[in-house]
């Protein structure tokens, strides 16, 4: 949740995919439905909505991991992000986010505030053009390859820590 706010703050003309549960939560429903954000329901309509956002020239912020990584655990990305990218995006701009010490990590009580003020680092990676992934292959095959490429890219970068 915090990460979405950082990224929306930094980028103009962007749109995000949010958990479809947020559309049902009494506190967040109004805000997200007014925003025109894309609900992450796995339907044709969702993919179409996301593709239209991209074709209209906006960026789409997606968190394919859907959550924060836990140190030492292999990353898993939902394939939806890659599928949308293959359909409608020209390139992907990877953004890497580190937080030290790990706060608001999954499985950590949020009220256990660390002694040190948490420090977030966001770094923007190089644009990844998608045309080479698309090629002549059927969409789902291209999306699987792109997804695997992204996982490898993120695992290497995140475990290496921020660049100085």
């Amino acid at each position, binding site marked *: 949740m915090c990460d979405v706010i950082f990224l929306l703050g930094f980028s103009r003309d962007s749109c995000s995919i949010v958990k479809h549960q947020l559309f049902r939560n009494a506190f967040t429903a109004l805000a997200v439905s007014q925003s025109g954000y894309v609900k992450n329901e*796995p*339907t*044709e309509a969702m*993919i179409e909505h996301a593709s239209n956002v991209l074709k209209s020239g906006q960026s789409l912020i997606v968190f394919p991991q859907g959550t924060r990584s836990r140190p030492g655990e292999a990353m898993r990305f939902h*394939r*939806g992000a890659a*599928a949308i990218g293959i359909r409608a995006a020209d390139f992907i701009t990877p953004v890497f986010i580190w937080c030290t010490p790990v706060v608001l990590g999954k499985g950590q009580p949020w009220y256990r505030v660390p002694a040190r003020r948490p420090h977030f680092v966001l770094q923007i990676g190089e644009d990844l053009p998608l045309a080479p992934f698309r090629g002549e292959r*059927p*969409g*789902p*095959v291209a*999306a*699987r390859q792109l997804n695997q490429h992204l996982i490898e890219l993120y695992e290497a970068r995140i475990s290496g820590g921020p660049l100085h």
Partner: protein
Amino acid sequence: MQSREQIYALVRDALAELFELEPARITLDAHLNDDLEIDSIDAVDLIDRLKKATGKKMSADDFRSVRTVNDLVLTIERLQGP
């Protein structure tokens, strides 16, 4: 109107081509999600392809209860209707 056999052949072709699955893995008992790793986003592409192949209207709703390749074949057969 296609026979069940023809529909099965059509489904096998679609799965093999769209997801580059080995034909041997595509059996009637194969579970689409657990065995063939086809997720809900893939299903959108699959339904799109099957729509074109059969010339029938289909929506994701029609496939809500589909779990296995056999379910898929029976659903398409039912959608063709008499």
